[in-house]
């Protein structure tokens, strides 16, 4: 942590009391660290700019509305906001189609009916069938845990209660089930993607 002539806490107080210059100093002081943190998560310059901007909009609103408390340090607080916005970004990404600007616009890159076409449905069915066969090759204890977790959506706590082993053992069996599946897939050059 660098020592500055004016601490962050003083700048924050000055900003709350109306000094806009104090905010400029805070941004100048921490922009590189905050931006690099965001970029290290999203690997996209434009998205990083957006999240950086949204982070400081939240900071400004919180400070101006008098909701900020000086219990924590300024930078960790801002980093936490940035971190939460990065998480929001990825959550949104899972729900919404992303338009990537590659010079050519295609309406179908942002609009689809959400259903798989006939070919993809067929491939998906084959992949799932292949996977079911591979799972049958696993040792019984590993197969049991994997089926409960992946197909019945049970938690490891529920699996441990059902099978009478500890949670750690159930986790270990799941891990080895996945390792063994990968080994079989690699060994037989099986393609499980559509």
């Amino acid at each position, binding site marked *: 942590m660098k020592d500055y002539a004016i601490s962050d806490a003083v700048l924050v107080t000055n900003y709350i009391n109306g000094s806009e210059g104090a905010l400029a100093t805070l941004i100048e002081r921490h922009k590189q660290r905050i*931006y*690099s943190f965001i970029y290290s998560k999203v690997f996209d310059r434009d998205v990083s700019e957006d999240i950086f901007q949204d982070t400081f909009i939240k900071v400004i*609103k919180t400070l*101006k509305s008098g909701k900020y408390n000086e219990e924590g340090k300024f930078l960790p607080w801002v980093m936490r906001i940035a971190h939460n916005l990065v998480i929001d970004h990825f959550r949104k990404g899972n729900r919404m189609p992303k338009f990537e600007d590659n010079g050519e616009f295609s309406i179908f890159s942002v609009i689809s009916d959400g259903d798989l076409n006939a070919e993809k449905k067929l491939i998906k069915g084959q992949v799932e069938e292949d996977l079911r066969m591979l799972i049958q090759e696993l040792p019984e204890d590993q197969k049991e845990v994997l089926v409960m977790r992946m197909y019945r959506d049970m938690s490891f706590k529920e699996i441990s209660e059902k099978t009478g082993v500890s949670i750690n053992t159930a986790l270990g069996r799941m891990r080895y089930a996945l390792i063994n599946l990968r080994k079989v897939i690699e060994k037989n050059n099986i393609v499980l993607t559509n």
Partner: protein
Amino acid sequence: MANFYLKSFNKEEKQLEPKKSTVDFILNYSKALKVTKYEDIQFETLLN
């Protein structure tokens, strides 16, 4: 997948910072935003 997680930054990437326009936008936003409290209600006004 492993490559994705282990992707290392080069020196230039480590010195990343936001564009000046982004910082300017934030500073202008800050200047324009007024938060007014009336009893328990809080109003945000952008004075542009």
